[in-house]
């Protein structure tokens, strides 16, 4: 694993924690931030391994990551499924956009 991967992981975690925290209700922000951190530590390495191994198309992997993270937000924070899904989608779009900008 290269240092670049760790930088990408840190960037993804930072951006998604920020977005998830902003989208969470005030009373759940700390818990949502912790969930975003732990969920990304889980999904990012697994997704990267599957992506590098060309196991599945990128779009499918990204979809599965969003589903997994939405489930995590729902189960850990107790937020509604709609809110959990919204947070997962927006956070992943934000980190994807950031990666595209950085190149």
């Amino acid at each position, binding site marked *: 694993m290269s240092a670049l991967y760790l930088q990408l992981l840190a960037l993804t975690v930072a951006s998604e924690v920020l977005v998830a925290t902003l989208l969470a209700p005030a009373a759940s922000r700390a818990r949502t931030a912790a969930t975003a951190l732990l969920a990304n530590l*889980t999904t*990012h*390495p*697994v997704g*990267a391994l599957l992506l590098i*191994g060309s196991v599945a198309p990128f779009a499918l992997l990204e979809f599965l990551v969003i589903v997994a993270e939405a489930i995590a937000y729902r189960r850990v924070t107790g937020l509604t499924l709609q809110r959990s899904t919204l947070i997962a989608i927006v956070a992943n779009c934000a980190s994807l956009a950031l990666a595209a900008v950085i190149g």
Partner: protein
Amino acid sequence: MLTLALASAPDLLFPGHKRVLHQLLLQSGPATSGWTFVAAPTAGFGVEVVTVGEPFAFSSKYGTRLHAFRPGATIPASWNDFVNTGAALPAEIHSVPVMHPLARVLTTLRVLAVDDRGIAVEVVDEQRFDASGAPLYTGIGAAALQLGIAAIGLAGLVLITRRRAPVAPRHR
């Protein structure tokens, strides 16, 4: 003469993808001595004299083929004038998803045989690099470390779920 089917690769980048620099390198060997090698597309522009041991660009979309010329032979200036006896080259890795760490690929070729009828090459090595120029390490050690990080994340999620604090209904 070696004739391989060229993979067609679109020249455009799909949304969410980034360009990869894929170069070829001709390995020096007995079969390369006494020949001048040229990379030329079957469509498009950019006839390039290949220096053995130095990376050169190619394109699957434009059907770059490798040609060999005797010393002193006239190298055509236009792809129109090439006789199609050149060797086909490996499929170009054109792009990857933006989250993919791959930035550059260097494929090393060995010339197996050259004669006036054509040229035969084989791929002997392929190196992949990330944007920092470091080799893209995809070995077991890297995978184990990544799975270790994932395990920590998953364990944290399980722990935090067990300590779940109810959220007030107005916040849901």
